């Protein structure tokens, strides 16, 4: 970019001399052309970026099984009624236990353990602590090993997981497949018991089949302490045990010392939950796949489950979608327009059949929005997220039966189908010689059987951020010209250093952003119990006072400083835009969805930002409109504001001071899950937003 600028300047100099023009190289020509017409192009590119995002549901491809070894559904199911009766018996026993006992102790775990060992599995129990995630700024991107072992543990609350391992009869024990069923051992739950029934049915079968080549681990986690934490605790123990003595082992009557067993590298994991009653006529299967920081399991795993559920077992498969979008009229209109365009295209050429019905478009974009949102948030959508930290492909399957939990007659059929689905999936994974690597890891889902691969969805983002360097270059040139005019001193005309003042300001605000990002850690260290609201107030006041201090200390940083000290706003904007561009590009590598949503907010704000004073002075409609737009965009761009708006979009309105508390809780969850989105907000979005604010109130 710098060389382009220089080229342009050189060219200008020569034309001033009156010498004949030299034709520059085409690529330089193109660059100059783009920079010269940057306002037009930035509007065109941004609009194209948004449009590309909107037509993504049209470009979604049907999923296909990429790895040939998987061969889903090619083997006949071997499940018999005997297996199902095993599962039913376990559910009945657990229900009887709940009728006669109050939930205490580890009796239910022992009951499940006894069933497992009767089937021929190796059983063990694992104790764990419910506390897990602690925010520590330095451990942000470090691996899952950073769970610090608490020294003074109390026996007051601890969970007990049960796990059973079936060894593959002829296998070499190098790999294993994990099945997880969360169950609340204290309060029980009728639907949760059904998930135990399905898995126990399957386990009974797997204990006697000869085709297994990978060991099977069935993990029943103690979901009293959430779904995620028990699984994470088990995985930590599996992958990085502490050989030191732990106080936890002495708690309770159950002796779990040295009984932990392992079964090789985990190839894949399936989390099964039975939850609520299906609203539809069929049993519903929901697939959750997003792990931390927008990481997804291999698409093949979802494909296998989807294929077996739809084509073999007749489940209604769905993935999460933003329900409020389904009823939005503007999206519907867009869908209808696309449908019409698609029809028109088909009349021109029958091969151009990219058009989809408006209803499909609506569904697809609602799913896509949810997919983008879950990935952007960076918080795993289920216990499967814990596996992704160990490079294990895992998904959560949530089955909602269409019958009430106490219906005996339907239960048999439900167990049979659920277990067949899992059997087929396990059989496919069992067939794999290599780990999942054939299919996509970077994708967005628009329906369980449609996806958008990275090559397609990158276009929208690339179009969105493309104007940033162009506008930065054109603003820089403009700013340089203005500076040259304003200062007569030729020594100050060192062109290449004009950006330095602006860069100082940008750097100072980014540093501030970094400090603000770290502040919550110190606020958490403040002794005493504070409500989230108080904490957010603390945070807000500290941050704003820090901001004022920054403005006071560094001259030229503040928008309120006198004109002579202040930098030229065009140069400042140019550097701001460059910083935003770099930040967005970096973020797109770490978590694409965050970068995409961030670009949607940040790019228009950065592009529209301009001093409000000249606009008010000039009183021209165009400039007033521009100033108004930039103010609106800045208001929306404020993280708290955007949080409130998105909350409103999802149907939960929050107003007033409780908003601060909500926002704090939300941020706390972000850093507890080590989401890179938190870093993005603090270190890219907030500084850029502040800089835009500076530009808005610039004195010039």
């Amino acid at each position: 970019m710098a060389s382009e600028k220089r080229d342009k300047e050189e060219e200008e100099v020569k034309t001033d001399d009156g010498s004949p023009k030299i034709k520059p190289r085409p690529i330089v020509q193109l660059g100059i052309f783009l920079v010269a017409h940057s306002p037009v192009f930035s509007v065109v590119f941004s609009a194209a970026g948004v449009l590309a995002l909107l037509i993504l549901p049209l470009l979604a491809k049907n999923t296909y099984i990429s790895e040939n070894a998987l061969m889903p559904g090619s083997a006949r199911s071997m499940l018999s009624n005997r297996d199902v009766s095993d599962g039913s018996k376990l559910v009945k026993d657990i229900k009887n236990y709940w009728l006669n006992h109050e939930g205490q102790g580890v009796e239910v775990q022992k009951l499940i353990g006894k069933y497992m060992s009767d089937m021929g599995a190796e059983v063990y129990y694992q104790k764990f602590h419910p506390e897990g995630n602690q925010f520590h700024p330095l451990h942000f991107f470090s691996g899952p090993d950073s769970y610090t072992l608490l020294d003074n543990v109390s026996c007051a609350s601890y969970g007990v997981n049960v796990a059973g391992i079936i060894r593959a009869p002829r296998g070499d024990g190098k790999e294993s497949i994990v099945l997880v069923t969360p169950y609340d051992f204290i309060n029980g739950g009728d639907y949760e018991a059904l998930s135990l029934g399905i898995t126990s049915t399957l386990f009974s079968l797997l204990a006697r089949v000869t085709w297994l080549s990978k060991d099977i681990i069935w993990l029943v986690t103690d979901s009293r302490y959430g779904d995620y934490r028990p699984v994470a605790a088990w995985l930590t123990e599996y992958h990085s045990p502490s050989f030191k003595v732990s106080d936890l082992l002495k708690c309770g009557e159950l002796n779990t010392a040295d009984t932990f067993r392992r079964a090789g590298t985990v190839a894949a994991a399936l989390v099964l939950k039975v939850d609520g009653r299906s609203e539809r006529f069929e049993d519903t299967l929901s697939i959750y796949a997003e792990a931390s920081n927008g990481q997804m399991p291999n698409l093949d795993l979802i494909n296998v489950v989807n294929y077996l559920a739809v084509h073999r077992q007749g489940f209604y498969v769905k993935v999460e979608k933003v329900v409020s979008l389904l009823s939005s009229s503007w999206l519907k209109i867009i869908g209808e327009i696309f449908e019409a365009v698609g029809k028109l295209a088909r009349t021109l050429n029958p091969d151009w059949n990219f058009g989809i019905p408006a209803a499909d478009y609506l569904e697809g974009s609602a799913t896509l929005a949810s997919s983008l949102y879950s990935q952007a948030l960076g918080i795993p959508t289920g216990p499967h997220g814990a596996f992704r930290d160990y490079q294990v492909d895992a998904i959560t399957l949530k089955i909602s039966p269409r019958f009430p939990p106490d219906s005996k007659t339907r239960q048999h059929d439900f167990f049979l189908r659920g277990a067949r689905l899992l059997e087929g999936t396990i059989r496919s994974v069992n067939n794999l010689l290599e780990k999942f690597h054939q299919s996509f890891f970077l994708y967005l889902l628009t329906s369980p059987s449609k996806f958008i691969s990275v090559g397609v969805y990158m276009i929208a983002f690339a179009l969105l951020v493309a104007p940033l360097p162009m506008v930065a270059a054109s603003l820089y040139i403009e700013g340089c010209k203005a500076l040259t005019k304003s200062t007569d001193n030729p020594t100050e005309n060192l062109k290449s250093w004009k950006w330095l003042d602006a860069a100082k300001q940008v750097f100072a605000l980014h540093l501030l952003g970094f400090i603000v990002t770290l502040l919550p850690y110190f606020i958490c260290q403040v002794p005493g119990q504070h409500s989230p609201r108080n904490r957010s107030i603390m945070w807000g006041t500290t941050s704003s006072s820090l901001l004022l201090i920054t403005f006071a200390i560094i001259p030229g940083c503040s928008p309120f400083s006198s004109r002579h000290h202040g930098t030229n706003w065009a140069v400042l904007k140019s550097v701001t835009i460059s910083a935003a561009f770099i930040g967005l590009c970096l973020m797109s590598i770490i978590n694409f969805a965050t970068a995409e949503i961030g670009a949607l907010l940040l790019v228009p704000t950065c592009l529209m930002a301009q001093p409000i004073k000249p606009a008010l002075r000039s009183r021209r409609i165009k400039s007033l409109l521009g100033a108004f737009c930039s103010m609106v965009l800045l208001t929306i761009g404020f993280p708290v504001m955007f949080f409130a708006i998105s909350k409103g979009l999802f149907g939960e309105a929050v107003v007033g001071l409780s908003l601060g508390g909500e926002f704090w809780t939300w941020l706390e969850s972000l850093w507890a899950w080590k989401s890179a989105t938190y870093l993005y907000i603090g270190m890219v979005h907030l500084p850029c937003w502040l800089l835009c604010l500076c530009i808005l109130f610039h004195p010039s």
Partner: protein
Amino acid sequence: MACLVRSWIPLLFLQSFLVAIAFGSNEGEEFSEELLLKPLPDRKVLAHFHFENRAPPSNSHGRNHHLFPKAISQLVQKFRVKEMELSFTQGRWNHEHWGGFDPLSSMNAKPVGVELWAVFDVPQSQVDISWKNLTHALSGLFCASINFLESSTSYAAPTWGFGTNSDKLRYGSLPREAVCTENLTPWLKLLPCRDKDGISALMNRPSVYRGFYHSQRLHLSTVESGQEGLGSGIVLEQTLTVVIQPETTSVETNMQPSWSLSSLFGRKVVGSCVLAKSSNVYLQLEGRLGHESKNVDTEIEAHKLWMNSDFDLSLKPDRVIRESSSLLFIFDIDKSSDSEPFDLGLTWKLPSKWSCEQAPLHASRFLMGSGNERGAIAILLKATESQEKLSGRNLTTDGRCTIKANIFQIFPWYIKVYYHTLQIFVDQQQKTDSEVLKKINVSPSTDKVSSGMLEMMLELPCEVKSAAISIEYDKGFLHIDEYPPDANQGFDIPSALISFPSHHASLDFQEELSKSPLLSSFKEKSLVRSYTEVLLVPLTTPDFSMPYNVITITCTIFALYFGSLLNVLRRRIGEEERFLKSQGKKRGGLKQLLSRLTAKIRGRPIEAPSSESPAAESSFLSSKLIFKIILVAGAAAAWQYFSTDK
């Protein structure tokens, strides 16, 4: 026809004559076949086939063998093998249920895949060459990829950790080798009766490979004659250990399944191999001594042993031998024939439970850590139930009771082990090396040249409940052509060998036996050893499926680089400017194009360049540019239309 008969008769004569000579000259060659059957506590049955072939020392340099396989004797002579063992294994030995402290398990529980070790009788400098040649010869002989052990990155030279103290020992294993009938067939070819007759006729391939564990082993050792001029004799021991689940119809889970040879293997024994000196079948029942009297002199007592309230044997044993904790029924199959095949059966009448004797410590090994960068290997030793019983035996000089455990481990070079990170925990307390580590021998790996090896001897207190050893490693990067075809599966770390040098397993029979090779090998004290699991390490693998992208990107970069480089080298900006300034007039673009075209047609350089100048357009959107763009766009649209619309 008559002619044919006439020509046959002398040939037959000749043959019988030759056979007689052969018998005469090699009277010492012996072959014996044996089968040991043993019900296991977890409702499975172990069948252990044992064939022994002895060639005594002879002057004839082993050229004329009668029974002994020529291939093996040539192997021994060519590579000067002193002792060698090759095993092919599928499945895992279950130390908890199938035992770990008897000679059978310590000799036949082998790591998954192929394991080969050999001691050579050659000068130290030639050991590696002999090993490499041996691997190739065995690879051809057994239809297996043993030749991969030739590479110096895949074998090691253990000094004392392996149990055999020799500096001419080489050890290697291939965990990923798939074992199948193609390996069994050449192994059977070494037997004089192959699988046509005798006990080996039981080896029905489907039933052998349906088992939970099978390990075929070939062990050969040379016996020095001690006499000058006489060569050395060879003992070839071939064993096949199979663990089979008998098919049962009863649903009762606590009842041991009843079985017979024909139900296990689908075949029966119809007479022994005529070339075998002895062919016996043994049935070993463990844990059945509590309620039986001490001596078996009387006929009634003996009868009671094989036909009692607990179980029934379908055949009367020829002998019954007692061992410290088990009973051994001996059957001679010489008497069986086509009309009366040998089909031993065991029928349980009452539920019965027993447990096998286990090694003092149970070893398991696993990987720690996550990610593609670092990790750690941990070996966990856990005390077993039988430990208390054994612990009294090993008192050190200062009166402390200790268990010694040797750990022998090979690390492939891409597992870069940091030996200084070795940590030892005994009963969850971290110990310093000097406390528990008695001896350690480390040979670090060299990248792409040799594998690393770790041998260590731990001395643990007898009352130890658990011990853990962890050692950290970095994952190395392989060169693109070093990846195997299924690189995404991960890479194997071969099994570690845990042996207990102060514990020896043997069966002490209370009476003198006839010369049965199997039983005498059981009677000898053998080192208690157990192999750990094979580990799978996922390494970083390049995306092999994208060579196209790589080629495209590389070509683009090359084109850009060379294009700009040539421009920089060739163009002289100053000259061009001067040239432009000196130029007076401009000529029309069309005319210039025409002149170029004519020049090209004529095949000459452009004439009179001084009169021409490059067209410098004042606007980007000149008519020429627009024309070009429209032309390209039109071509593209046409191409799109005609290529898609069929």
